[in-house]
């Protein structure tokens, strides 16, 4: 394997010839050629520390987990006029090294273009998705989702109605150039409530050099006749050197999707997103502005709307959905209409060689409108065509962080974060009006000495959360207030016992206040034919987690295994309750939010083996057992165990352009670990899916575009997945053929 790339100035993109690059672990190095190109050959997979130095800049250190040939461009910060001033700045983010960090790199994201965020994240081992039909899907990290994970859109916690199982994250994945995922409660940086993990969508750094860049991504999917186009244009003008800018937008449209043998009625979707970013950067300070808007209309599978239990029974018993359809792009009722806006301002001020002060302010506005299947019977009401239910939530958040540079092998930050949120609703009651205030302080440090095989990272955080609820009861407004305060902490220890092998041990404590939806839900769920009640006496949910990971590689093979244990106190679950609720629509099963002690044990393992230089085999496995200790039964709605194998053939060619052929085989077992009497029907049986993909980089002029063809569910297998809430009503999507093309355009 090899690492190669170009070394250019961080500011103006000027080529930096004859820089030195070397790898500490192998002691081997090289000098870049006259065009700034470098290649380090003959490397085995493993963890490496890469140093790069150039006259006039400080040494840059990159930590690399090498799995495959790596293209890495290095951008030292050169101060032509001020040689000798010490400043370390590399483009690579070195945070979270001591945690279980997985990445979807830019190239991989290109291969996934057009897929939803949750679908993209599923390529990472230990991540599944919780679906509502084919159009709504949200990420599940090791069995945890919704309020138990944090999604960071460009550095800002995504705040919407993420508590709902049928509320997918309102994010355009095309904003990101790279997606990172931290599994488990292992960082307190972004909040105390990352019990399951953190998803970070990272846009590319704004351009440093003068010129205009553009990128166009187009993809087409056969199933649903979906088309996605996304474009980006960015640049910097000579006349205004400190300023860089970017504009980005995405259009997505899909019609009714097809399960093997039939169309799913009203499953189209329509998405229109755009964003812009601006950066003003001087030597000692910088300011960034970012704005994004996400708009979507999502059709909800019609046959999944049911009146009562008898309808549900009929739907179970039917081989095919009771409502049939043909292909159409039209989206009727029931549907969701969503709108999410994010505006962010952030900046930094450098304080000499001590460190820098970073600040962020963000405002988010989220509008969610849910339209029922039927219009009101009353004609004048029907004419208004209003959503049955509408939520508006606005969030203001701000953060101030002092980041100190390495001091006696310690590098870290101290910060304070605040959040203000207000939620309103219109139409049917589901959750009340509420106001939330949160204040947190955190301190993170990392200890790491170049000569040491050990690295330690730790964090501590204290949060104070205040929730005030405004609720109408019999025309009287009451406003109970709830206060929560608690500590979260994490420690991660990384030990390199051999050149390319390491052990990592993590411990953490995380917590979250109960969400208003868990305290105040009160009513009938039409999708699931259940009546749900909240409990106002819920306390904070807490988790203690520990994990141990082994990364070991030999010449042509390697393994990456992590075992974990989560111990929850006051885990919030929906528990069935007797008797069923009797209504004019019949009797409905009743659930109430309750708190239990729970434990989750799991393992994620990955193995790779290079049969030859061209033929690579990779295997992944993830297992999870989740147990409710209080009631001595399994926890409901946990992902089933799964295995995934892939074999990739890489065409060898002189021009070093990527050309590959990949075959994948995913197996999902039946989820047997379910509580008794918790569900209307048994979990669906396990299934196997085959996939095939082909990708190539093509040169045109001096640019490289990439094209790809992918077939998922190759055999058009009929199957149902336990984590799809519409498994009662229909099979999953059938075969889907995707074609994509990603064209970069560079105008100097």
């Amino acid at each position, binding site marked *: 394997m090899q690492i190669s790339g170009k070394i250019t100035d961080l500011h103006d993109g000027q080529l930096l010839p004859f820089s030195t690059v070397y790898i500490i672990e192998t002691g081997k190095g090289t000098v870049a050629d006259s065009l700034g190109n470098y290649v380090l050959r003959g490397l085995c997979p493993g963890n490496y520390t890469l140093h790069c130095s150039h006259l006039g800049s400080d040494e840059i250190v990159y930590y690399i987990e090498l799995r495959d040939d790596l293209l890495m461009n290095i951008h030292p910060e050169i101060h032509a006029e001020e040689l000798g001033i010490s400043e370390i700045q590399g483009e690579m983010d070195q945070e979270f090294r001591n945690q279980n960090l997985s990445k979807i790199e830019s190239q991989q994201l290109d291969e996934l273009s057009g897929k939803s965020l949750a679908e993209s994240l599923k390529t990472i081992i230990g991540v599944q998705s919780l679906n509502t039909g084919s159009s709504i899907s949200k990420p599940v990290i090791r069995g945890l989702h919704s309020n138990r994970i944090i999604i960071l859109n460009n550095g800002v916690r995504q705040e919407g109605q993420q508590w709902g199982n049928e509320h997918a994250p309102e994010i355009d994945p095309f904003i990101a150039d790279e997606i990172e995922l931290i599994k488990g409660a292992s960082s307190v940086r972004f909040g105390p409530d990352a019990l399951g993990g953190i998803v970070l969508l990272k846009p590319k750094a704004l351009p440093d050099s003068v010129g205009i860049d553009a990128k166009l991504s187009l993809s087409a999917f056969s199933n649903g006749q979906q088309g996605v186009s996304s474009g980006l244009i960015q640049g910097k*003008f*000579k*006349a205004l050197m400190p300023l860089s800018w970017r504009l980005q937008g995405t259009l997505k449209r899909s019609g009714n999707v097809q399960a093997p043998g039939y169309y799913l009625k009203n499953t189209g979707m329509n998405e229109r997103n755009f964003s812009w970013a601006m950066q003003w950067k001087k030597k000692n300070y910088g300011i960034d502005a970012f704005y994004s808007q996400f708009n979507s209309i999502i059709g909800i599978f019609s046959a999944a709307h049911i009146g009562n239990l008898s309808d549900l029974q009929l739907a179970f018993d039917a081989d095919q959905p009771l409502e049939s359809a043909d292909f159409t792009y039209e989206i009727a009722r029931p549907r969701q209409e969503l709108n999410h806006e994010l505006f962010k301002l952030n900046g930094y001020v450098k304080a000499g060689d001590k460190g820098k002060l970073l600040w962020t302010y963000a405002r988010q506005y989220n509008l969610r409108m849910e339209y029922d299947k*039927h219009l009101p019977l009353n*004609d004048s009401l029907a004419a208004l065509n209003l959503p*049955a239910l509408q939520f508006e939530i*606005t969030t203001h958040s701000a953060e101030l962080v002092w980041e100190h540079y390495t001091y006696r092998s310690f590098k870290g930050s101290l910060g304070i974060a605040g959040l203000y949120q207000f939620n*309103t609703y219109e139409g049917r009651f589901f959750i009340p009006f509420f106001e939330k205030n949160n204040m947190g302080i955190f301190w993170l440090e990392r200890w790491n000495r170049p000569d040491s095989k050990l690295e330690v990272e730790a964090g501590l955080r204290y949060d104070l959360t205040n929730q005030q609820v405004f609720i109408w009861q019999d025309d009287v407004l009451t406003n109970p207030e709830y206060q929560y305060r608690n500590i979260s902490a994490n420690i991660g220890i990384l030990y390199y016992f051999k050149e390319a092998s390491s052990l990592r041990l993590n411990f953490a404590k995380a917590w979250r206040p109960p969400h208003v939806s868990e305290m105040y839900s009160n009513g009938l769920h039409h999708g699931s034919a259940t009546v749900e009640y909240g409990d106002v006496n819920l306390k904070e949910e807490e988790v203690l987690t520990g994990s141990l990971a082994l990364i070991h590689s030999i010449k042509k093979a390697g393994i990456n295994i992590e075992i974990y244990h989560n111990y929850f106190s006051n885990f919030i679950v929906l528990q069935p309750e007797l008797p069923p609720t009797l*209504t*004019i629509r019949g009797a409905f099963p009743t659930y109430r939010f309750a708190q239990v002690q729970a434990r989750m044990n799991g393992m994620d393992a990955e193995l790779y083996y290079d049969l030859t230089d061209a033929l690579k085999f990779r295997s992944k496995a993830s297992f999870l057992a989740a147990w409710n200790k209080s009631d001595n039964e399994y926890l409901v709605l946990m992902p089933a165990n799964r295995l995934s194998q892939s074999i990739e053939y890489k065409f060898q060619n002189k021009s070093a352009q990527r050309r590959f052929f990949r075959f994948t085989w995913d197996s999902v077992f039946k989820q047997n670990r379910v509580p008794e009497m918790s569900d209307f029907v048994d979990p669906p049986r396990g299934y196997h899916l085959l996939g095939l993909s082909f990708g190539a980089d093509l040169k045109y002029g001096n640019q490289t575009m990439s094209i790809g063809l992918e077939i998922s569910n190759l055999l058009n297998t009929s199957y149902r997945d336990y984590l799809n809430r519409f498994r009662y009503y229909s099979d999953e999507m059938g075969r889907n053929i995707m074609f994509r093309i990603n064209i970069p355009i560079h105008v100097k």
Partner: protein
Amino acid sequence: MKCCKCFRGKRKRGNWIHAFELNPLKHIEMKNSHILLSVISLSILFQACKKDNNEVDNPPPVQNEEEVITTLQLTFIDQAAIAPVVTATFRDPDGDGGIGPDIFDDIVLQNGSVYSVTLVLLNETVSPADTISIEVLEEADEHLFCFSPLGCDLSILRTDSDGTYEIGLESAWTTGVAGNGTVKVELKHQPDVKDGTCEPGDTDVEVVFEVIIE
């Protein structure tokens, strides 16, 4: 590259606007910045659309739900006018969920009789109560009532029509021998799919009454 360096140098003297004017490419760049500035101001305009909403509605938000049905009333009139008029009611005054029904009558009928039955649906969460059955009648081509007796000697026929199919707001119940059983009363909402049978559509009402035939 050269220009950029020169620009940086001038800026150091503390007057970058001056440096800007010295630049021979001024006009082109000015134009560029203008385009940029207009693009950005346009974008900011877009943002100005959605305001914070942090007001608690007073009075509370109105439910614009499809319909709230709290009450089902059946009135039985003996066609022979021998047996007394009977009514049977199911009433859940706060709608689905919350507190359960406060009235849930048994249907007590005389054996060997034929009753004309009228069905009324009410929404009693509003005052005065809204008669939902009138709206059902207005949309008769989308609605069908289904009656399923079980365990007792009872036969039920719908006697009204939407022009093509029956509705069920009016029906005739014929009792046989004395005995106890149940009858399930359903309202099916069948927009565009009404075919006279009970299979298609969603269930808006489903109440199982105890039946006592004396």
